[in-house]
């Protein structure tokens, strides 16, 4: 009964919060607005630059929060060994839309364990929302290493990133004309996709620089952890996942559920954001876009109501109330004088001229 009234995204939100709580993440509640200045200084980090602003007391320019991460990172711990683990469930405002977002952030003195834990939690988050799910995993250090190893001009590097993101091998090849080695590496990144066992050794074969190998080693050890913890079956190495190199430095990932047309989970390691804010910390996190669950068009039930009680006002209120109580025990009930528009019901009880007629 109570299960029926939860929408799919609400059920998911509670399941996710409970998952993060179990792994020691603390809830994080932020205020509805922040100083606009915080967002404008880190505009490129935000997915949308359509920030809703207004003047606060004293003429300060405030913004409705378009993002939660910046506020968390702003106060990231800097002491050696200290790590802050938080989760949030907040509405954010982008392009004049209110978007429900749940996610977690892990900031501070991060090590290999924390990185793997966040990736594992991303996999588990997807598993709580659907039976079939995939987490695409990539590494910005590896992509940057490959792009910087050749002689591609800055403009071509940006275009190459875009081609990788779109799995556009044909234009990527044209961009690398005359740079055979760079093309061999990028060809591997754009075409290999699958488990760590399948993909990593093949990529290792084409890499040449120290930076590339270091990123690959990070992926290898991460993959081993995912295998040991039973998460690897739902993870797919796919280098079309790419984020802004100015912020993201390590693993990046994107999660998909069957039947949802866009990625519902997105995250990665963004050490460069706290560094840009002058803090000596590292950071990794992800967000789940729960509003996408609404779009899946899942019919909750064939009927909106179990019982509709129609009356013309002539029947004794006590009789009406009794009938309503009885019906409510079996399911949902609406008492009305006229049939509600646009809703459907399983059973109809009708009172006319003081008597029950149906």
């Amino acid at each position: 009964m109570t299960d029926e009234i939860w929408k799919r995204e609400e059920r998911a939100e509670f399941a996710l919060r409970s998952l993060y709580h179990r792994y020691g993440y603390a809830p994080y509640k932020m205020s509805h607005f922040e100083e606009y200045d915080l967002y404008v200084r880190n505009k490129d980090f935000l997915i949308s630059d359509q920030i809703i602003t207004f003047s606060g007391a004293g003429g300060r320019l405030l913004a409705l929060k378009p993002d939660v991460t910046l506020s968390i990172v702003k106060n990231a711990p800097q002491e050696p060994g200290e790590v802050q683990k938080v989760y949030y469930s907040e509405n954010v405002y982008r392009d004049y839309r209110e978007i429900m977002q749940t996610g977690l952030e892990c900031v501070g003195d991060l090590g290999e364990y924390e990185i793997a834990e966040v990736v594992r939690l991303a996999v588990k988050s997807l598993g709580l929302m659907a039976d079939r799910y995939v987490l695409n995993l990539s590494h910005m250090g590896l992509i940057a290493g490959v792009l910087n190893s050749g002689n591609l001009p800055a403009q071509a590097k940006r275009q190459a990133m875009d081609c990788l993101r779109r799995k556009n091998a044909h234009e990527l090849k044209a961009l690398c004309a005359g740079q055979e080695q760079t093309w061999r590496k990028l060809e591997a990144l754009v075409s290999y996709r699958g488990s760590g066992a399948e993909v990593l050794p093949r990529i290792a074969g084409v890499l040449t620089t120290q930076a590339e190998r270091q990123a690959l080693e990070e992926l290898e050890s991460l993959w081993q952890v995912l295998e040991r913890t039973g998460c690897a079956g739902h993870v797919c190495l796919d280098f079309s996942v790419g984020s802004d190199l100015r912020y993201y430095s390590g693993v990046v990932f994107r999660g998909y559920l069957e039947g949802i047309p866009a990625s519902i989970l997105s995250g990665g390691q963004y050490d460069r954001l706290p560094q840009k804010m002058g803090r000596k910390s590292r950071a990794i996190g992800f967000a789940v876009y729960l509003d996408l669950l609404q779009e899946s068009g899942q019919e909750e039930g064939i009927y909106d109501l179990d019982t509709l009680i129609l009356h013309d006002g002539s029947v004794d209120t006590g009789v009406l109330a009794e009938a309503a109580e009885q019906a409510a025990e079996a399911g949902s009930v609406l008492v009305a004088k006229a049939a509600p528009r646009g809703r459907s019901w399983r059973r109809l009880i009708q009172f006319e001229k003081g008597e029950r007629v149906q």
Partner: protein
Amino acid sequence: MDTLNIALPKGRLGEKAYAMLKACGYDCPALEDPGRRLIFENPEKGVRYFWVKPSDVAIYVERGAADLGIVGKDILLEYEPDVYELLDLKMGKCRMAVAGKKNFRDPVGQTLKVATKFPNITRNFYNTKCRDIDIIHLNGSIELAPILGLSHVIVDIVETGTTLRENDLEVYEEIVPISARLIANTSSYQFKDQAILAIQERLARQVEETR
């Protein structure tokens, strides 16, 4: 077997694209039978086709109503949808170009007035050149604009150049070559990967063979 929803662009490009798909073994007899139906399915081959306006193909694919689509590169550049661009089909070839009256010279001292159906492509092109422009967004008969003095130049698709020649216009500068592309929804690619890869490989082989 997963059924793949494929959005085809109405018109000649879509017909050519279907011919390629048919030659690869993804035929659908219902589609060849003209009528008023909108959706055509061949369950044996695991495909379901539908015709949509060419500029809408990318929207159907991005939003997941179609798993795959065939679309001109011009549409991808103009709308920048979040889709995978899996293959250049090397057909429907033309180019996006700047055209003006014969012997046109760029009035470098003033804002360049550009008439076009493709404001995003136009803006991106002139941004890279740091040229100040005024975009006049038209929906058709773009060639009229420079003739009537509405704009200095146009940015449009040029196939053979016949329309331009007949109106005393000529290509001033090429922006980018255009051809048809196979695109995929990013989420479908995760769950119908084998069916999508199979189509992609067969089409790629055919593109190679016809070269």
